[in-house]
């Protein structure tokens, strides 16, 4: 038993390093996607203290709109632009209809409201696009679909080109976002709002504009995530469950930290794959990916209640 837990998995890892690399790569790619969803969460949480549960369904909704528009005969890139327009419309609607009347309510009420939005979008999406699994328009968007075969140490390592594309696009998106938040006027306004609502309002930052902007950026991130994940697994409402995977990422990284979201996402993506392959399947009957991330985050949180990179929680009475 002890041998199976502490020694055998590591022996297996060293015996087949190419397989280990393959596992890590798979983990890295899903980790990137977790990180992207977590990024959407962090952005909204930082600027408005809303724990946006609807981020997952926004991913599905964006991907469905894109595929649906293309199926209606709209050229792929026009469809992308139109989808962005739809996401902008969604951001404005959510701000007007849901958030504005609820300004200043306790956190849990806003959280509930975003679950309400989630249900609404699930229903709406099923009525408009139908519930069946759809194929992402990977080729039409010019994403390469081949694969790169490497042979480290005489082994075999297969990297799908669409995964490589996803990693590169995600990296570009994160860099762009960081530049936007740190260097532009709008980005600084978003951060100011996150630091102190009233102070930000008093220097003339418009709450409404920023909220629409933030939700729109979250929509853009959702679209990128939707395309990347859809290229791997098809587009369906099952995608929504990956939103749950972003939650332990947030815990691990800290609710306010963009760096935390990315590092947390990569860590969880790789560790849960490792655990599943080397411990979960042989010892626990598999499918441990559903809870491993949560338990890991829980253990980390016991030692650092604000996550690895979150703002230190200072309590005053």
């Amino acid at each position, binding site marked *: 038993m002890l041998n199976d837990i502490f020694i055998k998995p590591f022996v297996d890892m060293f015996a087949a390093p190419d397989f280990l690399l393959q596992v890590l790569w798979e983990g890295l790619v899903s980790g990137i996607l977790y990180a992207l969803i977590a990024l959407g969460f962090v952005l909204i949480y930082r600027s408005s203290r809303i724990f946006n549960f609807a981020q997952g369904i926004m991913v599905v909704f964006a991907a469905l709109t894109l595929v649906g528009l293309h199926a209606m005969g709209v050229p792929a890139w026009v469809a992308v632009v139109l989808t962005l327009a739809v996401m902008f419309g969604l951001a404005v609607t959510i701000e007007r209809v849901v958030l504005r009347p609820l300004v200043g309510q306790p956190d849990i*009420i806003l959280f509930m409201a975003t679950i309400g939005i989630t249900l609404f979008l699930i229903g709406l999406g099923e*009525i408009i696009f139908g519930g069946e699994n759809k194929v992402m328009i990977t080729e039409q968007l010019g994403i390469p679909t081949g694969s790169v075969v490497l042979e480290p140490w005489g082994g075999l390592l297969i990297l799908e080109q669409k995964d490589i594309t996803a990693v590169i696009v995600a990296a570009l998106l994160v860099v762009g976002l960081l530049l936007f938040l740190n260097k532009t006027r709008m980005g600084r306004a978003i951060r100011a709002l996150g630091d102190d609502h009233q102070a930000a309002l008093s220097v003339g930052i418009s709450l409404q504009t920023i909220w629409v902007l933030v939700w729109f950026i979250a929509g853009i991130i959702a679209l990128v995530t939707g395309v990347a994940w859809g290229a791997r697994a098809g587009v369906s409402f099952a995608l929504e469950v990956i939103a749950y995977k972003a*939650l332990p990422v947030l*815990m691990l990284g800290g609710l306010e930290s963009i760096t935390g979201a990315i590092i947390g996402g990569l860590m969880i993506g790789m560790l849960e794959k490792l655990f599943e392959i080397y411990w979960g399947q042989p010892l626990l009957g598999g499918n441990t990916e559903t*809870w491993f991330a949560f338990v890991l985050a829980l253990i980390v*949180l016991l030692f650092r209640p604000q996550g690895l990179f979150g703002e230190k929680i200072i309590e005053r*009475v």
Partner: protein
Amino acid sequence: MLYRTAGQFKTSYEADQALFPVRQDAILLGVILAFAWVIFPLTASEFTFQTLLIPILIYALAAMGLNILTGYAGQLSLGTAAFMGVGAYACYKMVTIMPWMNPVVAIMLSGVFSAGVGVAFGIPSLRIKGFYLAIATLAAQFFLVWLFEKWAWLYNYNASGAIQVPNLEMFGVYVAGPQADSMVQYYVVLAIVSVMTMLCINLTRGNLGRTWKATRDVDIAAELIGINLMKSKLTAFMVSSYVVGVAGALFVFMWRGAAEPNLFDIPLSFRILFIAIIGGLGSILGNYLGAILIVGLPVVLGTLPAALGIPIASSTVEHINVMMVGGLIVFFLIIEPHGLAQLWRLIREKLIIWPFPH
């Protein structure tokens, strides 16, 4: 006029602190209880029992359990369904290992197991707060559902991986299983839920309840006046999980008749959270109002198109249902963030002074 309190004088602190300081409240409750115990069972059809009466009571009980934790003690939990599952599986194991056991006793005891599991998963709440804690309770949710699936002993190694409620007898009448009569089941559920409600009301009014409320409002201040936070939070987890576990056992044994692990998945948790929040956090009455809304609404929406003669495919109705529920949640949050219970409180205030505004 109906609710006029003039002439009802309180001459002692006891009278002022009584369960029903206003006589009309007691009368109203009496009328509701008369409906629940006599009139509904006499008039309800099989369909009404199965789609409205029994589920409303069970959901209300589950929401009450959650409300103790979230509404009274201020610890947000997203893992309610998993604790219901613990109750259901514990009850199943007990009645299959000890078939001579009285089913009602088994149901009441099954809560003890979920209380234990609840305390174990409540330990992180001593360090973690707010949304971090909410996500931490999701660990319970996903881990326990996974366990229900993988631990074959829990479902007696049967091939389907689901638990099937056997025929259970009490005093010569079937109360659970395929042969049980709906009306009998309704009475069992009603009796258990009534007793638990009474228990919860008194717990939340008493010393323990005030400790929870202090913890919820400002926990550091509560600690300063000498409340042991660990005790307060863990008892909240314990009582809440007990109530939720009993609700879970009722859910499977008195209503569904069979259960697969994914029945206790996260949508059920959210459903119960909706009931607690739309009903009103920190209120017992609210759980019932929320359950009536959340359970009743889909039934009404489902029968409405057919009644109006509009031909809509049943799958579309389902989707419209989901959409409407989502929309209504947002709607109710906007008109009254403190829930239906607060709405009733406002109406009652108005009724007391009506028709004179002062």
